[in-house]
């Protein structure tokens, strides 16, 4: 019993450690004093400043627009890419494709950013919204593939044969059989791509020009100038939004889980019947 107490204390301390900086930030967003040191009085004026700052609001909208578009395109390309890998019958080719797919997952951000910068400059693509969008699509595709592929592997292959025997076209098989089955994986992939895009700083920092800025880049340049409680207020809003996203994601993955559990239960009962 005593052991349990110590382990709970340890976990508690780790959680405190993980959350203190975030709550520190949010706490001072209500500070009237203008610094992150002395709490002189409660105010909402920092939030007022955020909503009055047209440039900042514009950047927030840009960031979400970018995340929305890039993850949508990345999900489409990635889902069909995962099907391509799934239907690749030779194991060696399939493993080679998977290794290539994972290169961008493990590469440090600076390498991705620098190499994309060289690539865009070589092609003569000017550095603006378009170059950032292309990069975000590019680094989001592999995570979509990794989310969709396990779902495809779970699928019973005889379903596809049955559909084709019953006369379904390729399009029909994809639309009516494969897609409905892998939908949870596709949605999870979309969520992951969305957060990758929202979170990214380093790649955007390399490939963006003067005309276009995202939230991370803006926070970086403001943080280099020192503290402004406007950022604190903004981070509190972002934190709230993240919580909503996490809850949404949690329900989707829970849905996945229960289906898995249901299947396991069914398999168990079938096994029992055989016995």
């Amino acid at each position, binding site marked *: 019993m005593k052991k349990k107490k110590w382990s709970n204390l340890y976990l508690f301390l780790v959680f405190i450690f993980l*959350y203190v900086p975030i709550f520190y*930030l949010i706490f001072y967003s209500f500070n009237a004093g203008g610094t992150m040191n002395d709490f002189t009085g409660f105010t909402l004026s920092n939030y007022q400043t955020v909503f009055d700052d047209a440039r900042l609001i514009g950047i927030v909208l840009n960031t979400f627009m970018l995340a929305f578009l890039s993850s949508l395109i990345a999900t489409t390309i990635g889902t069909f*890419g995962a099907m*391509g890998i799934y*239907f690749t019958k030779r194991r060696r080719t399939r493993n080679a494709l998977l290794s290539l797919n994972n290169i961008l997952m493990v590469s440090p951000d*600076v390498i991705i950013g620098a190499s994309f910068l*060289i690539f865009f400059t070589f092609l003569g693509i000017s550095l603006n919204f378009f170059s950032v969008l292309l990069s975000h699509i590019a680094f989001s595709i592999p995570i979509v593939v990794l989310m969709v592929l396990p779902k495809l592997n779970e699928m019973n292959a005889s379903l596809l044969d049955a559909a084709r025997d019953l006369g379904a076209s390729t399009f029909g098989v994809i639309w009516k059989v494969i897609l409905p089955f892998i939908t949870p994986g596709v949605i999870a992939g979309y969520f992951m791509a969305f957060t990758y895009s929202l979170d990214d700083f380093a790649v955007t920092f390399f490939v963006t020009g003067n005309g276009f800025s995202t939230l991370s880049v803006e926070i970086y340049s403001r943080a280099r100038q020192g*503290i402004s409680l406007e950022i604190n207020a903004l*981070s509190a809003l972002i934190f709230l939004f993240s919580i909503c996203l996490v809850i949404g994601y949690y329900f989707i993955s829970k849905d996945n889980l229960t289906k898995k559990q249901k299947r396991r239960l069914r398999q168990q009962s079938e096994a029992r019947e055989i016995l």
Partner: protein
Amino acid sequence: MKKSKWFYSTPYYLWLLFFVITPVVMIFYQSFFNIEGNFTFENYQIYFTSGTYLKMTLNSVWYAFLITLITLIISYPTAYLLSKTKHKQLWLMLIVLPTWVNLLLKAYAFIGIFSTHGGVNHFLEFIGIGSRQILFTDFSFIFVAAYIEIPFMIMPIFNSLEELDPSLISASRDLGANSFETFRRVIFPLSLNGVKSGVQSVFIPALSLFMLTRLIGGNRVITLGTAIEEHFLVTQNWGMGSTIGVVLIVAMFIIMRLTNEKKRKGGPLSK
């Protein structure tokens, strides 16, 4: 099905060609050009002969090692204890949640906490040690980097502990091993794969976190990432920047070689 497969996954293969293979090739290619745009081996020569670059690389590797070690020491017990709690999924979600807060915002929070009149110095004054310079030191860089990477270390270790078959632990106990022996001979070896992938996902970013060295390290700490950013965006010496990039890619492959599971049973797809 076969022909149409090529049709609908064409965009994906184009992506592999243009955004995975081409950029890597181009960074290699660029590393053979000097600042005037002439083909040369100069960059590699400078990198390996002038002591500054080698020293910087060693420094960066050392910092990454320290960051990885500290995160591992904090994360392993956390993951282990988490796997024994009742509402695992809820706790795990609470661990993951901070990773959804933008990295820049977390760094920004530490600028406030570590500043001369910030929270930590208030506390140090209160307990009588007195305030001191914390921001813009090596310590603050390692601390913040470890803070950011901890969830990425906890998750893979937790997953490997979850996959562990509980009957193995019972067997070990039945055969007379005490809980420490069980941990040392059964649990730890079986969770080693999680530790390896955790190390992989912490060490590689730790080599390249240039925004932290700028915001928290105050340009005192220079990592490989900082050097690349400096060469590309400040001094515009892309050739040298690419050379350091190639070094970073090589370092990445070495780490992946060291941390990949040795016994590959036919790749990740086989079941």
